[in-house]
């Protein structure tokens, strides 16, 4: 039987096993919405803005490991989705975004709600497709999921002109697709793996530095096993938190601009650096000239273009981090060479001295609410087991520093693009994907207002997210840089005319709470968590002058941190 393009689209999603599609209707996708209407296998989540839809799908993908799926209409629907697509692209998150397009014969005609979606999205997608024939639709959907989820994952856009969704053809969804031009590498080079193991075993001052690739590649099991067996210190990037248990004694905390003193010092002084699924981002390396001056570097990454991009490495291994780590574990098991325990003891002793600096200390006796204290209390109240999303800025760094993630996929934030407005919609996707877990969004009064409209979506789908608003009435990270580097000239960083967040939450049908005393923090969090089926918006009035420490200033090396 012949089906319309719209029906084929919906059947394809069903056959692909899509659980949720996040989106917003409009003219160019009306046939598709009509086809979605008659079924309940693929549940549509109506956000209040297309940016929210992409972030929600992104949060769903990050927390479940399954691809996030989005549908938006042509023109402004697609352009509104760009920020979310670029966010996913920078963090290698598998998304499949379907954009409506004007009918084929009107393309290029400046038609109503027309935009060149393929052209606009090209620089921020892994790949994109324009469907030009209804006979190609099902296979293109399959290819989009295949490309998005394999190799180094990333967002894929499929642009579908309206007339294609009305035309009819036989439906057949391929079981699998292959593309001659796309063959991601899975297994690492055996010789390189051997060299890496040998180098790793010879280390006197080793350091394991892991990133988002460990999370995306579901490799935290083998990573933890390998690191424990070697008893080497481990640091995670912002994107890699949860890849190695933060409460393990081997964990030195996050590294980089706002990483811990011990992690950055150990990086600077190590003699063998083992980089796993990390990309030597500028926020990690600081001044590249001063980066790890004495280290021989091993680097596993699935993307060859990540290797030796910023920092020349000695032993590159291209492959899935999980596979490569397993292969290394097998070699270690068979190996007879013993580690240099004396050197390692000395190294751990040195690390202990750096640790003793207690770089994350803050004033616990303050009469004002310290933002760090709110995050610590949240950690305590949730037993360290919540899914935490964040927006971007000071609160994001405090969340990363003070919430100890023991499991992968629990820490959901926009690391690469640094997208304010990400946290709340991402939390919606996380909550839908993990309905029985606690989901908290740590945010600030600046970021939260960028996608605040999604509070309405949360009510519609009864998403009991706990919003932790660290409200310091400033764009805190901007203010901090202005204090440090612009002689305290606070240009446009003070947030005037803020809404009453309690009333705002209430007007959206949620629970609002205002907390302005340190003594009330824990009680409020407990009260909020007890409201299991309600969204609670907690507005914490925090110390305006608090800064994120420690910090590597721009141009500094990893051993040049500003401490409190």
């Amino acid at each position, binding site marked *: 039987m012949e089906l319309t393009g719209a029906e084929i689209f919906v059947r394809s999603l069903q056959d692909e096993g899509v659980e949720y599609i996040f989106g917003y209707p409009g003219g160019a996708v009306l046939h598709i919405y009509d086809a979605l209407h008659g079924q309940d296998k693929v549940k549509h989540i109506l956000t209040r803005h297309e940016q929210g839809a992409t972030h929600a799908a992104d949060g769903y993908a990050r927390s479940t490991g399954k691809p996030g799926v989005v549908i938006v209409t042509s023109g402004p629907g697609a352009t509104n989705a760009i920020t979310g697509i670029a966010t996913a692209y920078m963090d290698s998150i598998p998304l499949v975004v379907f954009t409506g397009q004007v009918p084929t014969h009107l393309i290029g005609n400046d038609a109503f709600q027309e935009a060149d979606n393929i052209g606009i999205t090209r620089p921020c997608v892994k790949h994109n497709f324009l469907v030009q024939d209804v006979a190609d639709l099902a296979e293109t959907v399959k290819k989009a999921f295949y490309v998005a989820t394999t190799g180094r994952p990333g967002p894929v856009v499929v642009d579908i002109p309206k007339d294609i969704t009305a035309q009819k053809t036989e439906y057949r969804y391929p079981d699998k697709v292959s593309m001659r*031009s796309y063959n991601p590498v899975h297994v690492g080079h055996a010789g390189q793996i051997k060299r890496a193991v040998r180098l790793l075993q010879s280390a006197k001052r080793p350091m394991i530095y892991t990133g988002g690739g460990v999370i995306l590649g579901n490799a935290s099991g083998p990573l933890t096993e390998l690191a424990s067996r070697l008893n080497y210190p481990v640091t995670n990037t912002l994107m890699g938190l949860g890849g190695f248990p933060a409460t393990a004694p081997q964990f030195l905390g996050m590294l980089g601009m706002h990483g811990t003193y011990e992690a950055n010092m150990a990086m600077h002084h190590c003699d063998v650096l083992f980089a796993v699924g990390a990309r030597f981002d500028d926020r990690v390396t600081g001044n590249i000239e001063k980066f790890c001056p004495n280290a021989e570097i091993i680097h596993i990454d699935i993307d*060859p273009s990540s290797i030796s991009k910023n920092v020349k490495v000695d032993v590159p291994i291209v492959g899935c981090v999980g596979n490569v780590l397993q292969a290394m574990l097998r070699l270690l098991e068979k190996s007879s060479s013993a580690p240099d325990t004396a050197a390692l003891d000395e190294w751990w002793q040195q690390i202990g001295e750096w640790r003793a600096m207690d770089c994350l200390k803050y004033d616990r006796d303050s009469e004002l609410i310290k933002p760090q204290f709110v995050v610590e209390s949240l950690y305590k109240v949730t037993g360290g087991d919540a899914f935490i999303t964040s927006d971007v800025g000071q609160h994001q760094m405090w969340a990363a520093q003070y919430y100890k993630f023991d499991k992968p996929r629990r820490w959901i934030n926009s690391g690469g693009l640094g997208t304010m407005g990400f946290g709340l919609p991402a939390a919606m996707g996380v909550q839908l994907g993990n309905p029985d877990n606690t989901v908290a969004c740590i945010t600030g009064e600046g970021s939260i207002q960028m996608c605040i409209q999604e509070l309405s979506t949360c009510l519609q789908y009864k998403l009991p997210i706990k919003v932790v608003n660290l409200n310091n009435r400033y764009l805190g990270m901007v203010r901090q840089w202005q204090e440090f580097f612009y002689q305290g000239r606070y240009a446009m960083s003070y947030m005037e005319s803020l809404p009453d967040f309690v009333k705002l939450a209430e007007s959206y049908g949620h629970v609002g709470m205002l907390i302005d005393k340190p003594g009330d923090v824990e009680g409020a969090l407990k009260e909020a968590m007890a409201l299991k089926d309600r969204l609670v918006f907690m507005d914490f009035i925090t110390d305006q002058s608090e800064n994120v420490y420690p910090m590597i200033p721009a141009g500094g090396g990893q051993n040049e941190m500003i401490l409190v």
Partner: protein
Amino acid sequence: MRHIISILMENETGALSRVAGLFSARGYNIESLTVAPTEDPSLSRMTLVTRGTDEIIEQITKQLNKLIDVVKLMDMTEGPHIEREMMLVKVKAEGDGREELKRLSDIFRGRIIDVTDRTYTIELTGAGDKLDAFLLALDPVAIIEVVRSGVSGIARGERALRI
């Protein structure tokens, strides 16, 4: 250093703009770029001339390989290869100068492919520096129009870029 990179890619709309977009987004320079379908109409072959340090060229080839439409590529400059470019030059050819131009064209193994009583159009093929030399040899005032195809290249011997 100057590199000639040959790319086999899916002959699909937008494939060229993916390559051009990559170069502009990452700040790589393109000296010349030619593209046409191959004997297999599903494939296009692109020849791209760029300059950069070894590190930059390594990144360029990795980034190109990462493009989904790119099937295979080869850095011609890594081995012996033949480089050719075609040029069409329209020059003023009047009076005594006509004979002189004919001789010059012969020296460079050019061919006069169109003639009017006041102009010659000369076709010339060779490596880029030969074409440059020919243009330098011409009286600049005489040059009416220059069209260059951009470089194409092929490896010497049995080394070949094919799928």
